[in-house]
Structure formats: C-alpha cells, structure tokens
C-alpha cells in the first residue's frame, strides 16, 4: 500500500461487503456453535449460583437485581467473573486467524486485487467480530435478566436496568480490546496456531500474573517509597492490564456504594455516608477513566494491527 502521497478513492469502499461476509462466516462456523452453548451454560450456571446465594443471605437490598450479576456461590464464580474469562476467550477465538487465515488460504492477494483498500478488509473483519461478540453478549445478558425475573420474581428498577446496560456496554468494550489484540497478532504471526497461543499467553499473563506482580515491581521501582505511594504505583501498574480495568469498572457500576477505585484517605471520607449508594451518573464518573482506558486500548491495538497490515507484503 502506498505510503507516500495521497491515495484516491474511499478507504471504506467495500467495507459493508466485507463485514457482512465475515459476519455470515462467523455465524456459520463451528466456533459460533461453541459460543452459543457457552452462552447458554454460563447464563444457567451463573443465575443458578446467584439465586441460591441471594435466597440464602439477602434481606433488603435496594439493588437486588444487580446481585444477580455479582453474587457468587462456591464453587461457581459470579456472572461478572465468568465474563472476565469468557469474553477474552470468545474474542481471541474470533480474531486469532483473521488475517493469517486469509494468507494461508491464499485468498488475500486475490481479494486485495479487487478495487478495495486494505483498510476495508481489516476494519470489516473487526466490525464483524464486534457484531458477533455484541450479539452473543446481548443474548447472554437478556438470558440472565429473563431468568432472574422468573426466579427472583422481583422486577428490576429503572436505575438497575441502566446500570445493567452500562455493564453490558463496558463488557463489549472489553471484548474489543481482546479482539483487536487477537487481530494484531493474526497480522504479525503467519501461523494461526502461533497467533492463538501468543494471544492466550498474553491474556493469562495480564489477567493472572500481572496484577500479582505489580506490587513487587512497585517495590523494586521505589525501594524507599512510603506505603501510600507504593499502593498507588502498584495500582497504576496493574491498570495496564485490561482485565483490571474491566474488573474495576464493573465494580463501580454494579456496586453503587463504590465511591472510589483507588486508595481513600480518611480525610476524604469526612461527611460521607458510608455504604450509601451513589447515583448512576456518579458511579459512571468513578469508572470513567477505566472505561475510557478500555476503549482507548482497543483503538490503539487496532491501529497497531492496521499499521502492521498496511506494511505487510501480500505475497506468500
């Protein structure tokens, strides 16, 4: 693709065609069957676990419906924790062979010799992946809410629905990060198996290892730092992981009593009503940096993949 001088014609010519084709590929693929079953099973397991637990402990919670998402019952994780695993797996599953698959099927040069730019191909694939993820997640979300309505017998309030909707949108943004990362590696690694392994490895690292490593790194960086600085540094480091950002934004959105996601000084608590819920807007403001971080992360990763793809030679 030319890098010097301007190009003529729209970069998005053919975008819709690519998106629809990829979408129909996704829907017809075996991966989608697996995804559908995962969605149903996760919804059932999460709601079952949550209902059992809610019945056992709840007295009066103004946000009873949200507890459906956050309550866990051993040995099952909560719905949000399920999603924290499921969403990256789904996104990686959809994106790991996006570009190298075309290479290996030897369709890439034939498609790119049609009157479209590379932009349309990559962006179309990303949009199709996002649409597939969104459809699955919306189905999952509706399933959980529907099951909750039946089993709890309590209708959710307006604010609860608002929070649940924000939670859904944040989850989709989180999916975008992993999809963009999987696509970036599908450009840089010629073998889909390598791309999948590297993405999964990175996912394990940033989700499980990095948060645990962050305090140690903070300690090493600031051997003489006081405790508050260490905590703040460790937290900042751990926020490089999209999993941390997602967990924190979900915490703020689904637990209305969350007032801050960082350390709080006693002086800041003066006059605060402990445990009283924040309005939805304020909760969103608490999670806003995390949400923006997730969106920015997916954009940066997508741009990375885009640049790599533009510079790549199409010949096998």
């Amino acid at each position, binding site marked *: *693709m*030319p*890098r*010097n*001088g*301007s*190009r*003529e*014609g*729209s970069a998005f*010519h*053919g975008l819709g*065609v*690519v998106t629809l*084709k990829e979408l129909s*590929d996704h829907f*017809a693929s075996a991966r989608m069957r697996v995804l559908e079953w995962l969605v149903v099973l996760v919804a059932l397991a999460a709601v079952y676990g949550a209902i059992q637990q809610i019945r056992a402990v709840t007295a009066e919670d103004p946000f009873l419906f949200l507890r459906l998402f956050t309550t866990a019952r051993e040995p099952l994780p909560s719905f949000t924790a399920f999603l924290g695993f499921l969403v990256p797996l789904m996104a990686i599953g959809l994106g790991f062979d996006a570009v190298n698959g075309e290479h290996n*099927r*030897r*369709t890439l*040069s*034939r*498609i*790119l*010799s*049609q*009157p*479209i*730019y590379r932009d349309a191909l990559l962006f179309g694939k990303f949009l199709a992946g996002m649409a597939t993820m969104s459809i699955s997640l919306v189905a999952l979300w509706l399933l959980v809410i529907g099951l909750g309505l039946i089993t709890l017998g309590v209708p959710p309030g307006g604010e609860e629905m608002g929070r649940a909707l924000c939670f859904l949108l944040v989850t989709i943004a989180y999916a975008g990060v992993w999809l963009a990362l999987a696509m970036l590696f599908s450009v840089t690694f010629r073998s889909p198996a390598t791309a999948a392994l590297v993405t999964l490895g990175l996912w394990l690292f940033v989700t499980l290892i990095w948060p645990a490593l962050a305090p140690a790194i903070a300690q090493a960086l600031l051997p003489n730092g006081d405790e508050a600085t260490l905590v703040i540094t460790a937290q900042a480091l751990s926020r490089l992981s999209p999993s941390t950002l997602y967990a924190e934004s979900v915490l703020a959105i689904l637990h209305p009593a969350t007032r801050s996601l960082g350390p709080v000084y006693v002086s800041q608590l003066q006059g605060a009503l402990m445990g009283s819920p924040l309005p939805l807007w304020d909760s969103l403001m608490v999670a806003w940096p995390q949400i923006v971080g997730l969106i920015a992360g997916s954009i940066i990763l997508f741009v990375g993949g885009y640049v790599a793809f533009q510079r790549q*030679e*199409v*010949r*096998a």
Partner: protein
Amino acid sequence: MNAPTPNPVTANGQPHLGNVIEAKGLTKRYGETIAVNDITFNVGAGEIFGLLGPNGAGKTTTILMLLGLSDISAGQARVFGHDPMRDPLSVKRRVGYLPDTVGFYDNLSAADNLHYTARLMGMAREERFRKIAAALNRVGLSEVANKKVGAFSRGMRQRLGLAEIVMKDARIAILDEPTNGLDPQASLELLELIRGFKADGISVVISSHLLDRVQSICDRVALFNAGRIALLGTVGELGRQVLGGGYAVEVEADGGVNLAKRLSALPGVRHVSEPAAGRFRIVCDSDLRAEAAGEVVAGGGRLTQLSLDRPSLETIYTRYFQTAQSPNQDASREVPHAA
C-alpha cells in the same frame, strides 16, 4: 469519489495509445536486497506478454507492483495511464489478477465465492447473477457452480480464478504461474482459455517458469534473470538474437550432389551443418522447408525426412546464460531453470 472511466484507454494521463501497461525503471528493494532492478517494458493492447524466468527472478514482485499491492521503490508504472501507487482502485478495477496458486473460501460454493468478489467490485445484484453464470459457463464450471470449492481440484480452482477475471470484464488479465502444478491436459485447457482472452481483446500478462509451455501463446516475452529483464521481444527475435537464427530445418537425403552448398545458397539461410552424412541442419530466418526440399530434389537426392525445429525459449534461455556467464566463473549462482 472517482467513478470508473467508461473508456479506460482514453482515461486521464493518456499513455501512448496502444500501450496498456508501461513500466519505466521499475525497482523494488527489500532492505539491502534488490528484488527487481530497473526494468522497463510495455504491454500493448490485446497482446499476450510473457514474464518468464526462474523462480525468484522478480516476476511476482513486478506483478504486485503493477497492481499497487507492493510499494514501488523507484521508477514508475502506468496501467491505463493510472499510477498503481496513487490510484490503485482505478488500476484494480480494470485489471484481473490470478495469483500463484489461487485460493478460494473452501466453505463457500464456486458461485458464492464469485458473488463475494463481485460485491467487492460494487456490482449490482442482477448483473452479478448474469455475469457469474456466463463466466462459470465459459470456463466450464457451470455444473459445479453450487459445489463447495473445498472439493475442487487445482485445475478447477485455476479455472475459477479465470472466471473471476471474465466476470470482472477486466481489460488486462495478469496471471501468475497459471499452469503451475497442473497436469498436461488441464494446463492445455487453461492455455486455451487464455487464448480466448486475447480473442476478446483482453491484454494478458502471464508469468511462468515453464518456458516451453507458455511460449506457444505469448506474442512477446521478457526473460527475467536475477531481478533484471535479460531479453525482451518475440520468441523469433530472441532466437535470432541469441541463437543466430530463428528456425532450424533438418533435412535427411539419400544421394545427391553438393547438397550442403546448394542449401547454403538459399536466401535467408545463415548456417548449414552436416552432423551426419546425408543429414543437414539449416539455421535460417524463416521456414525454408519447401525450398530445402526443392533443392534436395534438384540436386538429385531422395528426400527421406524433413522437419522444422521452432526456436525454443528454453534453448534461447540456456544459451543466453551460458554465453553471458562464461566469462566470469560465477555460473553456479544462477542456473537457468530447466522446466
């Protein structure tokens, strides 16, 4: 945006009328290595132009630069007067490309694969159905139009690739190693289809390392070697240039007087040799079989055999590089590819 110009040859920039592709000093560097080194050639309208040479000589890279799929490091290319770097869409709208070992989506049928590319071209639904049916019919794939491509043989895939070019109404077909890996029957069928392109007025650029297979259909050829065009012209011209004559006629005769001298006297004969008694090899500028036969009979001989060796590209190629490389003893580096 810029709509497709109705008549591509008179599109902006107006090249020398009749040339659909013009490459001037085209060069491609990958870091230190030079894949294509300062090559210049033109392809005329309705011509079949062969890019021939061993693997790795720069043929595919040249093609990708012409299509705007690879950056041009230096020099310039014009396809219908369009710069593939600046205006790749205009180029790609008029050029059909069949990559080396073309791939299709195995999970889609032949027709659906074509529908996808037709939609990428922005073709309307009606037009799509009509053109795809016609294109598949032309390459003989109508009966398997709704079969998944996964079950197709290599030859069928190549033909499907040609169907895509037919459907596109391309004015130039660029075919990269189209007969590679095909059995003789399939490759003959494919070459027949390619001749059909020429009959429709489509210019064809065909790259191959199988010299003899392709020489039969090429009007002109460029012989590539190590990123440069070593020889350029019609097969006859190259034969004269390299072998010293275009045609070789073999004559066997019983008896006769002074046959060698008589044959040498024919107009257009460059050289006569007598490898065995009564057997003559005549290198000449045109097909002199009839005249040679006449001379043998006139000289009192009985003509027992008469045959014509067309100049073979492989002979030309091998001979050229033998002579070009004999001065320096570096011949092991680039062995001419014997197909």
